Structure formats: C-alpha cells, structure tokens
C-alpha cells in the first residue's frame, strides 16, 4: 500500500531501536545506524524487511537507529510502526503470535 505519512516509533535508549517510516516510490530501503552493525547489521535489516512484508508493506523508506535491541524488540517496534503508518488499530494478535516460533 502507498501512504504519504511519516511515523516514528521507539527511543534512543540502550537496547531499544528508533524506527522512522517514510514514503518510498518503490521497494523497501533501510538506512540502519547501529552500534552492533558489524555483528548484526545484515540480520537486523533482513528481520525488519521480513516483518514489513508480512504486514503488506512493500514500498517504504526505513530509517532505524539501533542501540543494541534484541530481535523481540526490533520486531515489536517494526510492527508498531507499520500499524501506525497504516492507521490500523485492529491488531491481528493471532497472526502476530504465529510468527513466534
């Protein structure tokens, strides 16, 4: 889906990630700033891409400032950002929960 909105979630606290979603003409682009980029940068980018795609967002520019967040945090912040971007509040808990295998 396309949207003109920009949303930001998260904080700059350690073990958190601040994610900003902005409109993008085509595809998912991720600009990641992370204190663990060398060790986990590719993993974090792949994880955010996967979550966004699962929520039907395929054209978006992501700016993320990561302070060593764990996967659970990164997923939760990405989901929250995606829902907020889409203006949705009807959280599909069952579907979200099914990702946690």
């Amino acid at each position, binding site marked *: 889906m396309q949207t003109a909105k920009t949303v930001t979630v998260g904080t700059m606290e350690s*073990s958190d990630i601040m994610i900003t979603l902005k409109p993008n003409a085509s595809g998912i682009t991720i600009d990641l700033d992370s204190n*663990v980029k*060398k*060790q*986990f940068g*590719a*993993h974090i980018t792949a994880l955010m891409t996967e979550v966004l795609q699962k929520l039907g967002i395929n054209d978006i520019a992501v700016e993320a400032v990561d302070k060593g967040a*764990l996967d659970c945090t990164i997923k939760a912040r990405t989901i929250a950002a995606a829902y907020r971007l889409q203006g949705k509040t009807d959280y599909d808990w069952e579907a979200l929960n099914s990702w946690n295998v």
Partner: protein
Amino acid sequence: MVENKLKREIPAKYADQYGVYDGEFAHIDSYQAATKTIKPIKPNESKLLGSIHEAIVKTGLKDGMTISFHHHFREGDFVMNMVLAEIAKMGIKNLSIAPSSIANVHAPLIDHIKNGVVTNITSSGLRDKVGAAISSGIMANPVVIRSHGGRARAIASGDIHIDVAFLGAPSSDEYGNINGTKGKATCGSLGYAMVDAKYADQVVAITDSLMPYPNTPISIPQTDVDYVVQVDAIGDPDGIAKGATRFTKNPKELLIAEYAAKVITASSYFKNGFSFQTGSGGAALAVSRFLRQTMIDEDVKASFALGGITNAMVEMQKEGLVDKLIDVQDFDHPSAISLAENADHYEIDANMYASPLSKGAVINQLDIAILSALEVDTDFNVNVITGSDGVLRGASGGHSDTSAACKLSMVIAPVVRGRIPTIVDAVTTVVTPGSSVDVVVTELGIAINPARQDLVEMFKDLKVPQLTIDDLKDKAYAITGVPEKIEYGDQTVALIEYRDGSLIDVVKNV
C-alpha cells in the same frame, strides 16, 4: 604466519621478534637485569628547573628516544598531554612512548601520532578515541599491549629501555623525593611509576606541590630523580576516581556478585589468613560487600587484600576483617588517604605486584582473584582489550598476571551486554589464556574450567546453578543471535604480549 599454542595466527615478522605464546610458564628463564646510565649530582647542584621545556632541553631528549609516563591519575592526568605538547612544539619526532596506560583524556595523542611526534607506543590499554584511531590504522608500527606485570618485566629485562621518564609527582621536594599521598592531586600508590624511576636513564619529576626537604614518606627516592619541575597542576583529583563505581543496584550485577561470593566462601581457600584481589567494577565491588558479610558471620579474616585498592577494601581493613592492604594503585581518594595514614596499608611497585620475571611477585602468594571480561570463550580464553566489533578499547591490566598466579581465578561477567554476547565461541582477542581461568561466574550460574576437576569436586554441593561453558555460550546466543565474523584489514595495529613477552595474539585494523 605462525600459529601459537592457542591457535592464534601471529605474523612471522613479529613471531620472530617476540616469540609466540607457548604456555603460561614456558618462557620463565634466568636473565641479566637491565642497567641504566647515571649522571651523578655533586654537592651544591640544584635539580630544580623552571619549566617542562627546560627539562626537555636538559635531558637532551632527541628524535627516536623512548619516554615514559605513569597512569596513576587515570582520567585526571595532565602530565602526558603537557609534556607531549611541549615536545611537539620543539619539533622532536619519532618518539616511542611507554606510559603504564592510556586514558580517554589522552585523545591529543592522536594528533601527535599523525604529526610523526609519536611513532611507537606500548601501553596496558587504549581507550575510546585513541583506541578507535589506532584500530583504524593511523600508526605504521603496531602498539605493544603489555600487562602490568609484563610491563615491569619488559623494563627490568631491558625490552623497554626508558631514556627519560616524565613522572607526575603529587608531592616532591627540590631534590626529588616523591610520594603520592601528599599534595593537591593525591593518587596514593605510585606503584607503576616506581619501576620507571628505578630503570630509566633520566627521571623528571613534575609536581604541583613542592615540599620542604626532605619530603616523606619517600615512594620514589632522590637517588632515582634527575630533575624537578614545578607546574600549576599535574592532574584533576576528581578524574582519578572517575570510572570507579559505587555500590551497584543493577540486579544482574548483584546476582553475579552473590554467586561469586558463594563460590569464594564455599572454597577450601576461604579460611583464616586467606587473601584476595577484586577489581573496581560494579559487580567486583558488590562481591566484596557479600564477602564481607560471610567473613563476619563465619569469623574468617584475610591476611591481605591486593590491588587496585578501593574504599571497599579500606573499610574491611578498618573493621579488622583484612590484616594488610598491598597496594600498587588506588582507584579512589579514600584509598589514597588510607595509604598515607595506615601503616598496614603498604605501597609496592609493579615488579613486586605482578612481574613474572621477578624473584617472586605478590600475586604468587594470592589465593583468590576476581576479574572482569569483555568476552570469554568456550576454551575459557578472556578478552579485555577489544570490543566485539574488533576495535581496541580496553586494557590488559593485571588480568593475565593475577589469573596465572593465584590459586582460584574467577572471571565475573554478564552472559550478554545489550545485544553483545559475552560468552562466545572464540574471543575477538586473547589476553588471558583459558588455562589461567578457573571459574566463570554469570547471572545464570557458574561454569568451572574442566581442567580444574578439584574445583568441580569442591563445588559439587554448591547452591549455585552450574553449567558448562558451552551451555552458557548457547544461552547467550539464544538471546542475541550468532554474531557475524568481523572483517579485518591486513594491517597489524596491536601486538598482545603475554606477561612473559611472547605474543598471545595480534589485532588487525578495522
């Protein structure tokens, strides 16, 4: 490339020059101690000079020489920056510097490296900005990282020959009798500086508190000092204690400390007359708090505490729980005060503290050591020098010395820090070999080195969760994921000497 005993690859050029690590006590051999050149002082001659500039001129410092500093002022040090600024202004180049360690406050060093003033460095540690700059490859020659005992050995054996030592002196008289317990910037023990004073060809005492002759107590005697310079300030007293932590409220650190104290008090070493060394980190200080309580409850007293002295140890001595404090360095002001006032708080030099080539260091008499770690791997090897991103940011300190020599060495660390696993497959850089590490203590429980079956037996009924080191690593990776391997360049930016002078690892540029 030469592979050492820990399967770390050492470039042939450095392997030839230094030798490679081949076991904790493989290179402990007889040797001829280093000598120095002495310029005698006649009656009626004065040692007092007007400025650092004049001292540099008088010592005849020139291109290619080696100069040294001590790090007793820690983050409050003004001396190294002051001296190097003057040297740079005078156009002297190509110097080797041999400070006992380097702190964040020494960031101006980066420019001196870039301008060719400093071309070789040996140090215990390298902190944030300087560490990052050196990791990026700004030096042609690698930094040589030495432990505190290893540095004392290198100076005593002549591996480091100091032409001029510029020693910050909290107080000195005009004839060079120095101590660290009087003056404006008191740092307490001068343990690291005492070695420099003994072996350097020339010693310049730089003080902001000139005392009437004779200045006592005498930590560094007039017979080791050539010149005395008075300046406005040698250090910021607040900076000396910077980084020394207060009692932690972090539940993870408290749990680690509680487990560590249980290991100590359940060990056969915990009896009247035992000895211990803790560090200055939050968890280490908490260990001494828990230990103190059990010592009171079970009426057990220690013969000595060694270090790296903190106020926590000073208070235990005042309570009569510890007989003597053996002090190579002080981490806070109350410890410096105690050194001045208390006859059973005794100052020693780094040679006596930890040198593997002395006639027996104090650590050889030590029962229990509490040590920290940036990383521990499944072979129990410990890294305290590079971050998991491969960047130099820590310090070797007394880690490899103490753990090799004491009877029970305990490494305390959380399983993860943020997203960084602490227990890993292979440490980024080895500083201390796994054979020196007896017990790893984390918030999830302890792992005993299987090489110490006596400890496995000793702790079989201990009420602390016990895991294998592989279990701890798996638990860490389950939380953080498996980190990608760091991509290094081809340039060697640091050589990690083991305490005996052989190379235990190298650090490449990133």
